[in-house]
């Protein structure tokens, strides 16, 4: 038998609902106003997006809370109250789904762009997120309305398992990429060196790989997972860039015989006086090239021949002491050598003859210059290239460029001063006398100077 419904039975729940609605809407308004003003002051954009995404749904939450209070104080039967409750839960689930949709639509593109994910990946991730929200929402609604969900959960678990298997390679890289971006251990623009030897500037970190541009301008792709797992030296951001990059060249050479030969000091002096630069260059640098491992301060061929073959150790010593580093070019060096020989000839030292077969043979050096893959745009790249440089290349930039190609100083100092604005370091290298070291010794001296400057 139904009991008669009185006016208070209706008025009280409605009044409660109305009062609660006014109160919750007022509370919502006040809260949002202060939260929005706080969010605007933070750098993180996520809080702004969160507030924006929940703004519409929060009205529904106010209505739901107020309706729940109204139903609670109404004299309805338990059955009707239960039905009302289910309806309100449904409304809550829908509002949460709406919020989830809004968040997915805004957060995924924002982080996608930050991680430099390709557009199709951002779109795919958004679709997957929305699908997950729909599936969870449907499952919740079915649960609310008492429909069995176990078979559906089984299907969902299977789909998740298949997807996990399909993406088993990609997922760790994706997570590693996320870790790299959030922890900022390695950032785009950093100069890094891996334990496996690869090095260069980080050009991009995408969802699978990190791209590194090597010193030879090759692109190295390192899976994010491997980058996280390996030991990485991060030298940080690029340093001062050169106006023009430095291209390293290698130098190979051929020996060309001239057919000219000297049997005594007079003939040696006369031929040397008119010899082309390529001959002077060969005979003042040949010992250095062939025996660079053996001794610093190598003698020139003239000094060795005069001592060993003519047996004039005094003149040999004087010729050996002519320091090629003091001369700006080969003409001046030749002039000095000829002067020393002529001074000796003036003292009557021309009687000594070379035994047959031990004459001095004039040889000229034919240099073949090749570009190497190494290019430096800053001091760090310069240093790393220098470490890898062949001795032939070092020889070209230090010895040959200065004397034979008649540049004012060695190539390294020129570039450091003119393109990198490093006059002090340029001066230090220009003052450094490479003839007092073996080639390996010269290389390590240069490396030390540059390392000191970088520190």
């Amino acid at each position, binding site marked *: 038998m139904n009991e008669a419904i009185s006016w208070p039975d209706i008025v009280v729940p409605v009044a409660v609902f109305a009062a609660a609605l006014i109160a919750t809407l007022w509370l919502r308004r006040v809260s949002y106003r202060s939260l929005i003003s706080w969010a605007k002051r933070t750098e993180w954009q996520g809080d702004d997006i969160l507030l924006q995404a929940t703004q519409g749904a929060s009205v529904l939450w106010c209505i739901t809370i107020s309706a729940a209070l109204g139903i609670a104080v109404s004299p309805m039967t338990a059955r009707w109250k239960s039905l009302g409750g289910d309806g309100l839960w449904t409304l809550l689930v829908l509002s949460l789904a709406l919020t989830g949709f809004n968040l997915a639509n805004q957060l995924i593109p924002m982080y996608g762009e930050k991680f430099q994910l390709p557009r199709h990946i951002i779109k795919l991730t958004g679709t997957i997120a929305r699908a997950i929200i729909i599936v969870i929402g449907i499952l919740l609604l079915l649960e609310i309305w008492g429909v069995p969900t176990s078979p559906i959960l089984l299907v969902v678990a299977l789909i998740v398992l298949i997807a996990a298997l399909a993406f088993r390679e990609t997922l760790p890289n994706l997570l590693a990429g996320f870790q790299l971006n959030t922890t900022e251990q390695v950032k785009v623009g950093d100069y890094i060196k891996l334990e496996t030897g690869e090095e260069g500037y980080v050009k991009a970190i995408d969802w699978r790989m990190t791209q590194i541009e090597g010193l030879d301008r090759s692109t190295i792709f390192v899976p994010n997972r491997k980058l996280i797992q390996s030991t990485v030296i991060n030298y940080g951001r690029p340093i001062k860039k050169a106006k023009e990059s430095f291209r390293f060249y290698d130098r*190979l*050479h*051929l*020996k*060309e*015989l*001239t*057919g*000219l030969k000297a049997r005594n000091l007079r003939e040696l002096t006369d031929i040397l006086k008119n010899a*082309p*630069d*390529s001959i002077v260059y060969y005979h003042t640098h040949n010992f250095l090239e*062939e*025996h*660079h*491992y*053996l001794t610093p301060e190598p003698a020139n061929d003239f000094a060795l021949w005069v001592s*060993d073959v003519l047996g004039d150790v005094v003149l040999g010593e004087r010729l050996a002491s002519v320091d090629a580093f003091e001369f700006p070019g080969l003409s001046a060096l030749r002039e000095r050598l000829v002067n020393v020989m002529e001074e000796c000839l003036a003292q009557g030292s021309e009687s000594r003859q070379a035994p*047959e*077969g*031990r*004459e001095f*043979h004039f*040889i*000229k*050096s*034919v*240099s*073949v*210059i*090749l570009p190497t893959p190494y290019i430096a745009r800053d001091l760090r790249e310069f240093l790393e290239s220098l470490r890898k440089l062949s001795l032939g290349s070092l020889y070209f930039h230090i010895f040959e460029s200065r004397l*034979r*190609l008649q540049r004012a100083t060695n190539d390294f100092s020129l570039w450091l001063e003119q393109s990198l604005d490093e006059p002090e370091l340029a001066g230090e290298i220009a003052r450094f006398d490479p003839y007092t070291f073996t080639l390996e010794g010269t290389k390590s001296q240069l490396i030390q100077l540059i390392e000191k400057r970088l520190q």
Partner: protein
Amino acid sequence: MRLLAKRLSGRVIQNINSTFSGGGVAEILQRMVPLLTELGVDARWSVIKGDMPFFEVTKKIHNTLHGRPDPFTQQDISIFNETSRKNIEEHNLVGDIIFVHDPQPVALVERKKELGKKWIWRCHIDVSKPNEEVWSFLQPWVLQYDASVFSAPAFSRSLPIRQFLISPSIDPLSDKNRELSRDTVDAVLAKYKIPGDKPIILQVSRFDYLKDPVGVIQAFRQVKRSIACRLVLAGGTATDDPESDKVLAEVMERAGNDPDIHVLLIPPGSDIEINALQRAAAIVLQKSLKEGFALTVSEALWKEKAVVASAVGGIPLQVQNKFTGLLSHGIEGTAYAIRQLLGNPEYARWLGKNGKEHVKNNFLITRHLKEYMLLFLALDRPEDVIYL
């Protein structure tokens, strides 16, 4: 090297000599051609045809270019011209660069007018003091080449064509130079019945008067008077050297019944055995009277052996006196140097170490390959500084 090889792509390099086996030239080409091919250079190798009389004449040419005063007869000229004519007519010349080794195939250049192309004459022997009659006979051909290559500066003559200096080389990975176990070395010594009781003095060379094996025996006998040691003379023969049997017989006679002298006739291809003998030796000699380059010196230096060698041909390039070995100028000097080293093993070791480093930097096949490729590229470029 790959960069250089790339610049040669599309060009065929044809090497021509007189034998596929025996002697230093064939040995170098056996290594060089496959390596150039591996680098992407189209390198080929062909040999001229010749009978025994032809090779007897070319052997005579070889000796007389080294300065031996053998008569060069009209008959020799006819034999050389006849075989050369046949080769000029029949030899298949396919290279863009024709790289002719030594005097035997020198006349092929007569086809230059017809074919064009670039021609290089690679002279592996010392022609600084040749028999003028023989040199005058060869010179008209030599002057037709675009460039010539010599192994040592002293070999060059005043020629109106370009002359390059390219030393030959050894392959450190070949059977002749690779590392060997102590067991292998001992097995080779056992095979040739050489006891390991005394330090071994070794000379490896063809049985040839110009290698002075008799002088080596004389020097050894002087050393043996004061220091106990053994001498091993290990030699081979080449198909283009008909004289070696005669020299071998003379060496055997001079060695007599001395149990400390071991004369070994080693057939071509016994590279591991040569390697083992060099590794077993305390001192390696190269007491040549005349030399092309004497790669046996680099082989010994590569094995960190103390070397005593004559200051002839290309030897002074390999042995920087008192830095990477000792140079000698006669039998007494050789005996003195051997005594010095046997009496001072520390000094011998120091020389051997420097010697290996010197070979590593200057006489390995990689440097040789590089210089050949540079030569091919420089043929069209007369300037002193070439930018590639």
